[in-house]
């Protein structure tokens, strides 16, 4: 196998440069690449375009990159949990492109599957359709949407092996596998890094061929955005 292990987040993101386009996995704060984000803050690289379903909260996730003004543009489906985000958006410091969540996921899929464009009905007849090509199939109208291009995809998995194979846990899977397939360079941080051969080949969610660098993350906070519980019976 091909060994993809790097020493840590700093080495993994070493060549992310000003103006790069990044994909960041996660849904809300669930399954986000915490270590990579912290390393990006430390590195201070600016003018980033971030493709991510959400934009974190003020003091966690992509919110940290917003606070340090490293993000030029967000491409997301929902960004509502972040007051610093709102301030920068309203002041014009931050560019935002809102796209339907399924379109976001499928444009990642398209990149990973080598399909230059896909058709989706999401957004037909709305402002999302403005300037886009539409086309009818079997009497239903679809928008043509293009595959994303990202310089780097940053994903977070539960387990990974030295060959770059990834396994995700529960709903922290979300956008991570499709983004992992879509980056020109894909960086995976994992909670548990194991030797090649320790994972069952049948259970791997992301084959190692899609992962260029992998490292064991540290100090996972895994914050909960909306803690909802019921009393013990």
């Amino acid at each position, binding site marked *: 196998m091909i060994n993809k292990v790097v020493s840590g987040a700093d080495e993994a993101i070493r060549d992310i440069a000003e103006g790069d386009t990044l994909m960041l996995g996660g849904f809300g704060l669930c399954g986000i690449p915490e270590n990579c984000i912290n390393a990006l803050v430390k590195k201070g690289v600016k003018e980033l375009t971030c493709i991510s379903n959400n934009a974190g909260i003020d003091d966690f996730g992509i919110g940290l990159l917003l606070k340090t003004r490293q993000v030029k543009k967000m491409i997301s489906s*929902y960004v509502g949990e972040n007051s610093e985000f709102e301030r920068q958006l309203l002041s014009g410091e931050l560019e935002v492109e809102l796209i339907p969540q*399924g*379109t976001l996921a*499928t444009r990642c899929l398209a990149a990973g599957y080598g399909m230059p464009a896909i058709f989706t009905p999401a957004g037909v007849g709305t402002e999302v359709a403005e300037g886009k090509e539409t086309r009818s199939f079997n009497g239903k109208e679809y928008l043509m949407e293009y595959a994303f291009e990202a310089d780097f995809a940053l994903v977070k998995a539960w387990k990974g092996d030295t060959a770059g194979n990834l396994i995700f846990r529960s709903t922290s899977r979300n956008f991570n596998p499709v983004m992992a397939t879509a980056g020109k360079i894909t960086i995976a941080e994992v909670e548990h890094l194991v030797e090649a051969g320790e994972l069952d080949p049948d259970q791997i969610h992301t084959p190692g061929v899609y992962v260029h660098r992998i490292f064991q993350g540290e100090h996972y906070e*895994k914050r909960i955005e909306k803690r*909802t519980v019921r009393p013990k019976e």
Partner: protein
Amino acid sequence: MLDKDGIARRIAKEIKDGYYVNLGIGIPTLVANYIPANLQVVLQSENGLLGMGPFPFEGEEDADLINAGKQTITTLPGSSIFDSALSFGMIRSQKIDLTILGAMEVSENGDIANWKIPGKMVKGMGGAMDLVASAKNIIVAMQHINKAGESKLLPKCTLPLTGVKCIKKVVTELAVLDILPEGGFKLLERAPGVSVAYIRSATLGKLYASDDVPEMQLD
């Protein structure tokens, strides 16, 4: 007139045995509480889960297990987890039998607006545009009139659209209405104690109503 739970209770009656259902945020979430226990129904959460269970017991929350509203939840026996692309894949390929979501406005031709108010901070459409464009069966749970007393069932939506010609049924605090294929709201049921005349006055879009429209049964 119904409260939010009343709307949810009425909508729950639309759920049939064997349905896969996607529940939006707000009133739709409450619907889960009223699905009859004897029905086999599976809830989809579009962040990647089929078989959403109740909230976890205190102390058993799992940061890796949330729903599309980012709330901590649980799985059920038979649940499955998948990625966001497959999740919207099954939505687009119409494997979800029923979608229930909220709205700011619905028009008499089935358009819906529920994601953006010009001049206000826009948070995004999330999965709503995908859901309304793909679902074969959508019920909107909404208030019939807004806080200013204006009808939200309109001839034409005034807010930016989420989807066009996609809504077939609306349940409000006042009524259950179908949207007819040729356009117009058809009054099917009145909320307890609400008159047809009142519903007519609260509906700006075209309303078709006989004088003997029955009252809802909520049992």
